[in-house]
């Protein structure tokens, strides 16, 4: 069966969904092909732009951006494009009932608190994750819920105390009683967040936190302040209990990424984007440097005028490898990797890894380039982790690159 749309986006992570949304704003017909739900739904809704530069923590991503290596996606598309994409995203989220904000003027990256007791640099975050208030706080209560997986106040406090600016704080850990009775599995923050979306759940959280109000300056909570209603729940509780509430960033399922995923998916549907799920793209029909259609595992032919490929990296299937060789999975674009497999690994476990960096080389308009710098495919743009030249894990730039390149790829595809 042959399907035709103006623009075809492949990949349902943050990059793909952003590309589909911005492409749809052009009024053209957009199809989004998904294979798996993308990593956003288990991640957070914070947008890290650049947390580390040259191995050092940085406060000002935009000041150092121009000094990144030339092959970095931010350098390819330019600082201005990154800024415009972030502004667009802030506005989009606000319109969808999810306020994300950048750090106050002159403050530099947000320092978010994680359930591992570490701080994490990020650029955009919702009010509930903003931990700036912790600097002036003296007494801080750290909460978990009985039977909750992966959130342990003693570990969090021990770790946080390693940071000089937190060493003198009065931290105290508490366990709230579990509201889910007879659970046959460990409770996660997501279970509680979903419960808190209901009136009973909100009442439970309010009643259990009330006893601590007035005794602490800040409450550090797992991300449990609701799902769809999270923003209202957080505001309501903060106001009624008259305390600063900070949701810690959790490990998967990290809750707030699912909040953003739901917002994006709803918006895609409202904008009329046609969503086809469980579609694994295996090959492409390319003629004279122009892609005509993509073929799925089921033998479907997905035709379009413009294509955005946001299929992710090695783990998501966007990149394929065998010893000494790596290539982009759909178009079989060879990636620049050393033939000697020994050179692929790094003895430094927390250092930069080729597996995280390898990816498609593109021009400023995100179209793929060959080794000589000539455009390989006229109507195909790449966005997100399938791009090469950056190490999202080391730099803390994953969502930032996904968002900025997704926004640009979708916008440019819409203009063709």
């Amino acid at each position, binding site marked *: 069966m042959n399907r035709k749309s103006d623009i075809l986006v492949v990949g349902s992570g943050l990059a793909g969904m952003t590309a589909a949304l911005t492409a749809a704003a052009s009024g053209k017909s957009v199809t989004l092909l998904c294979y798996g739900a993308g990593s956003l739904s288990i991640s957070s809704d914070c947008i890290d732009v650049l947390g580390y530069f040259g191995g050092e923590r940085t406060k000002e991503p935009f000041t150092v951006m121009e000094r990144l290596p030339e092959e970095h996606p931010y350098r390819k598309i330019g600082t201005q494009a990154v800024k415009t994409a972030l502004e667009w995203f802030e506005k989009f989220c606000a319109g969808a009932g999810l306020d994300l904000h950048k750090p106050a003027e002159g403050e530099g990256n947000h320092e978010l608190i994680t359930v591992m007791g570490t701080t994490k640099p990020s650029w955009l975050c919702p009010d509930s994750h903003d931990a700036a208030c912790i600097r002036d706080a003296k007494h801080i209560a750290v909460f978990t819920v009985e039977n909750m997986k992966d959130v342990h106040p003693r570990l969090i406090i021990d770790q946080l105390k390693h940071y000089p600016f937190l060493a003198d704080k009065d931290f105290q850990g508490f366990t709230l009683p579990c509201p889910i009775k007879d659970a046959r599995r460990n409770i996660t923050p997501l279970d509680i967040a979903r419960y808190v979306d209901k009136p009973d759940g909100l009442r439970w959280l309010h009643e259990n936190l009330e006893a601590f109000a007035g005794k602490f300056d800040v409450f550090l909570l797992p991300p449990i302040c609701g799902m769809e209603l999270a923003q209202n729940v957080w505001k309501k509780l903060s106001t009624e209990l008259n305390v600063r509430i900070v949701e810690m960033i959790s490990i998967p399922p990290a809750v707030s990424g699912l909040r953003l995923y739901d917002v994006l998916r709803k918006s895609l549907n409202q904008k009329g984007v046609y969503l086809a799920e469980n579609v694994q793209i295996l090959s492409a029909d390319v003629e004279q440097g122009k892609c005509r259609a993509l073929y799925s595992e*089921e033998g479907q032919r997905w035709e379009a005028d413009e294509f955005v490929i946001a299929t992710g990296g090695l783990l998501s299937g966007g990149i394929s490898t065998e010893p000494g060789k790596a290539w982009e999975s759909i178009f079989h674009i060879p990636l620049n990797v050393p033939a000697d497999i020994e050179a692929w690994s790094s003895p430094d476990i927390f250092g930069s890894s080729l597996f995280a960096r390898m990816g498609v080389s593109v021009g400023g308009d995100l179209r793929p380039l060959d080794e000589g710098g000539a455009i390989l495919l006229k109507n195909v743009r790449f966005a997100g982790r399938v791009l090469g030249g950056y190490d999202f894990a080391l730099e803390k730039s994953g969502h930032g690159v996904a968002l900025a390149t997704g926004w640009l790829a979708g916008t440019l595809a819409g203009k063709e």
Partner: protein
Amino acid sequence: MKHRNPDKCVACSTCVVQCPVAEVTSKFLGPRMTGPASERFRLLNAGEDESLSYCANCKNCNISCPQGVDVANINMLARTRYSREHRPSFRDWILAHGELEADLVRFFPSSLVNFGMVNPLTKFVLDAIGISKKADLPTFARDQFPALFKSYRQPTLHKKVVFFPGCYIKAYAPETGIDLVWLLNRAGYNVIYPENFCCCGTPLYTNGFEKDARKNAAVNLLELKKWREEGIPVLSLCPSCQLMFRSEIPIYFPELAEELDGKTALDDAQEFILSCIEKGELPLAGAEQNKLDVMYHAPCHLRAQGIGMPGLELLKKLPGVHAVNADAGCCGISGSYGFKKEKYDIGMAVGSQLFRTIKDSGIEQVATDCGTCRVQIMHGTGHPVAHPLNILRRRLDTTRR
């Protein structure tokens, strides 16, 4: 029976987040734990956890998995292995063998049979064996598909297609099958319905009746092979039947699938109609033009197939029809799951988001491709629910205005 390799799972928890059952009940360990994680213990012959029965086999784990792990299939294989040593209940036998029951009741007037099903006494008895008295069971059609088809006069046409109706259309919604025949005739195709075709086996397999499911698969594949060799496409309208043929038979009964070189998929009847429209065989000019708002629900077993939403595309092609996708998750019925006494409330909680989306939309007419989704949505909302082909025919057939 081979175990599925659980090691493709990287334990990322995407399926846990997207599982509609885990969302509403903590009785279910969740797809990751019940599927790939437990599979490692099953390889060591460790005992089975009762939480396995809570998997609804809706396939949202398969759909959401970024690594291509077929979590729900791992669960169903485990359930089958378990059922070999622990006989499924009488209730599960009843729910699994709907086709046999339909065969028995067709000799009685449907009004009598349906009254027999919905009266308080029957409800009480069904509830006692474990079928929720709160559930609306589908009602038998007055004439089942085989009888209706036999008396239906098709014009003489040379191009041919074969139709696999599945037991839902056969017993409960034969008019949808007839609508397809009408549309195919109009597009120039004569429809063949081989009476050898039987239930695809989905309700049998998911309820633990492996042998019966295998028997059905063998019969169906033999028939399918025959038409394959003649070069005539075999169409189906039921998402769950299609999923069984396309991706489950090769996993559950690989030795049977080999007979067809693993190419066991049926063709999607609505995709076929779409291509008829594209080729100009089924012109839409002359269709009723008046305005109709439709909210479409994509069944999970359709989403799992990776073929998009042909029913929604058809609706969007109709002049005057404004169709929107509900995109509000699973309806909660999962075949026979939501009828079970201990699962009824779970099914309704799963469907609540869809029900709310429909009610809040202000749109009266709902459309979906799956028969049991239809029953569940009507039960949860009270809105009329049609198959997209019902709407297509209604707007094309001038004799029906």
